[in-house]
């Protein structure tokens, strides 16, 4: 999948070092230099996705016993059955678009994963997941921001950390600079036909500001505006025929791809995928959850296709605040539960494997007798991505209070 790029890189470098590089190749090498920047794309499935219908444990008899109307059928006949992964777990049928990633070994799944905190409040659980300090409410910053702070970056640009959202999510809040951008095409000064004049006026005002915070941030802001203008975000055609879903989530991922390809220094990106809280009429192979899973996986598949060879340096990670009860409720939905599944995808991921210890779904194996038990702390997954992918060796400051030493081995 990535061999062509390796060849290009090595070959081009060789030519440059001999001094013979044609200009287009020299450009490519520059481009690759920036592309070697590792990028983490995080996706928060807000509302608590039903992990047992997302990554289906079809090898469990108890799964079928607990969900008479919601269970996804074992892999087999027809398109409405689970997509077999390893003979025990399968993808929801509407997530078929991710199967090639699994087959090429670029998709890892961690099941029975989550926070040991007992809360079943969406608000608290999201808060704990984003601060990565379960049980501690007053943590002022998010884990992604603490990463930015812990990992010095010599040439950090204002686009190092970007949330494609109107508001900076808790994960990215903190002392290190991070941007929230709703639409990248609208980032900048907006003063109609006077925009250029107004922008250059503000720029000189802030360049002369005596207050160092205002001075520095002003310079960063105008650097960012110019950088983005050069990248021309208004003109964008996804590569390789990538087809993003026409949804807020698809739109956010498309813009993340734009920023990555514009080489503006993006290192951590954040996108949201909402509406996962299905207490009633959740549906099985078809229905509400199925539609949401299609949006999620088609978005990710489009991103991967669009970024092509660049995926070697990119990891996409999904998360959701908690899982849902094993047994369906009286409204053909599922109530708030405990353990859940996370997906980690990318060129450097040792994929094709479901990680973590599977606790089983028999009533006596469940947490509180009703929920999927947790065998992997979600912070172990974050930690491994930060270490293995982003290359930060000492993560103690990113995950204060986390003492887990378990290594999943995803990288």
């Amino acid at each position, binding site marked *: 999948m990535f061999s062509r790029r390796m060849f290009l890189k090595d070959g081009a470098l060789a030519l440059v070092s001999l001094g013979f590089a044609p200009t287009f190749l020299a450009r490519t090498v520059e481009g690759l230099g920036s592309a070697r920047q590792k990028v983490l794309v995080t996706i928060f499935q807000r509302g608590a996705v039903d992990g047992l219908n997302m990554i289906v444990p079809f090898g469990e008899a108890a799964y079928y016993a607990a969900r008479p109307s919601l269970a996804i059928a074992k892999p087999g006949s027809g398109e409405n059955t689970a997509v077999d992964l390893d003979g025990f777990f399968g993808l929801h049928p509407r997530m078929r678009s991710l199967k090639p990633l699994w087959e090429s070994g670029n998709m890892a799944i961690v099941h029975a994963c989550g926070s040991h905190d007992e809360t079943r409040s969406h608000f608290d659980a999201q808060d704990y997941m984003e601060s990565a300090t379960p049980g501690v*409410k007053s943590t002022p910053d998010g884990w992604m921001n603490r990463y930015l702070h812990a990992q010095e970056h010599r040439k950090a640009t204002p686009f190092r950390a970007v949330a494609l959202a109107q508001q900076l999510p808790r994960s990215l809040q903190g002392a290190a600079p991070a941007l929230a951008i709703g639409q990248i095409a609208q980032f900048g000064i907006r003063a109609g036909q006077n925009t250029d004049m107004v922008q250059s006026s503000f720029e000189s005002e802030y360049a002369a500001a005596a207050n160092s915070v205002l001075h520095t941030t002003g310079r960063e802001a105008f650097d960012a505006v110019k950088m983005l203008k050069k990248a021309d975000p208004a003109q964008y055609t996804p590569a390789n025929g990538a087809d993003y879903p026409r949804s807020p989530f698809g739109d956010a991922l498309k813009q993340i791809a734009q920023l990555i390809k514009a080489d503006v220094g993006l290192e951590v990106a954040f996108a949201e995928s*909402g509406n996962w809280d299905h207490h*009633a009429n959740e549906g099985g192979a078809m229905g509400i959850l199925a539609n949401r899973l299609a949006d999620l996986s088609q978005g990710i598949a489009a991103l991967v296709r669009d970024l092509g060879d660049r995926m070697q340096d990119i990891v996409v990670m999904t998360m959701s605040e908690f899982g849902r009860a094993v047994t369906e409720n009286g409204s053909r939905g599922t109530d708030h539960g405990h353990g859940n599944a996370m997906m980690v995808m990318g060129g450097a991921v040792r994929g094709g494997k479901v990680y973590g210890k599977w606790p089983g779904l028999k009533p006596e194996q469940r947490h509180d007798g009703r929920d999927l038990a947790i065998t992997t702390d979600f912070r172990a997954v974050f930690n491994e991505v930060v270490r293995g992918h982003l290359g930060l060796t000492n993560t103690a400051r990113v995950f204060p209070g986390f003492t887990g030493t378990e290594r999943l081995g995803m990288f």
Partner: protein
Amino acid sequence: MNLRSRADRWARLGCVVVLLAATTGTGVAQRRTDAVPASPDDKMVVHVLNRLGFGPGPGDVDRVRRLGLAAYIEQQLQPSRIADDAMTARLAAFETLTMSTHDLAAKYYLPAQMQRREAKRAEAAAAAKPDMRSEMPAPAAAGRPENKGMQGERLVLAELAQQKILRAAYSERQLDEVLVDFWFNHFNVFAGKGLTRIYVTEYERDTIRPHVLGKFRDLLGAVAESPAMLFYLDNWQSSVPGDAATSMNMRRRRAGVRQEAMQPAPAPTRKRGINENYARELMELHTLGVDGGYAQKDVQEIARAFTGWTIDVPRQGGGFRFESRMHDSGEKTILGKTIRAGGGKKDGEQVLDLLATHPSTARFIATKLARRFVADDPPAALVDRAAARFKETDGDIREVVRVIITSPEFFAASSYRAKVKTPLEFVASAVRAAGVDVRNGMLLAQSMRQLGMPLYMCQPPTGYSDKAEAWVNTGALLNRMNFAVTLSSNPRRAGSTATVVTEDQIASVVLAGDVSPTTRATVARATNEQQKIALLLGSPDFQKR
């Protein structure tokens, strides 16, 4: 805003204040205000208007100079004696502001809740039909298309957000508004957490506002019993472990109580027990401060003391209730003090007494107030004096504030324009400086979101930061400049009338001439008055107060 009537009222107020000053103990006042310049220059007047309020509006500097700084400060410390009729008239159209939570629930929340359930059912039915299963547009986190009930529900928060920003911009009781903002933020609740949103209107109006210049203990007690805080920090469901009454209790109230109202039906509540959230934040954020000298054991013991402090029928907007069946009646030891068994609701009261009079609390509150009024890192000597005043007045907030805003440190050159405005301070001060009449406060409230400070939507219990670094980041800074452009060049998009002042008036009066040569030069090059004002309000000079 009618400028002339405002000026008249100011003149009348001047007389009132002179009379008041004559009847109160002038000797004491003399001692307390001796750092206040008797014949202040414009910079001092602007400084006071920037710190006690949301910056100068048209004519304010002249009026305060005529009144005298000391008299103005005294007047602001007694907000109930300041007439504010224009403000009242401006808010009269917002009917939800004066409604009880019970009425708000009946009129807005319960219908919205029912419609949400119906919409969900309809959506599920539609999605289950095979021919309808093609791509559904993914809704934002909040979910589905809005129906009438949900719009009505949103109106409540929308009106509350508008009143906040309109008061900041137009109230004559400027210090009162600054302190409402300060104390709400100190005792922050997040309107996005479940049922908290039902209670935010009454929380600010009935819990915070009446006490902002009163005794700290009264404010602390009002917050402790407020359904908004009880829900936000989960104390309403904290109960003695293994309490049989609780589960019965919870079942009985299920019809009126759900964990998160946005969701139809969480699993039947099973094991209940102690919830430590409120107990922890009570010490860490409300009173002692994180280094205030307490241990995890104290958190647990305080949580036990507050078991049974709960909400009566939350979904119907019920009030505080002490439920003795949820209460842990055993003996507790808190910060070395024993609270004897069987105290009932008094357990919690004793904890509040203990915390309100603790020296760490005096220091913590004094530091935060000095940070708001003086500098991000306030002078230690000032904090010491303010903390001492807190102790000797039994936590009288008015007296602590008075010490701070009449101190030499407050008037020191190093404090002048040393604070970077928060987004609320920026927006309100821009509206005041430009002298515009805002007709639609909703657009200002939306700007607050873009500037990174959505009103009533600060998620963590820490509240918003009062330090510069938190507010100056690339995206938010660009949005400040864009706000300045919109307000001056396209006022209708900011929901207001056109500006009634000139750039020169803003530079010379509002900024007291403190405009850098570069800003002056760029403003001079601008082609029209609107652009000049935009370049001034968006300038680094205007971001400071």
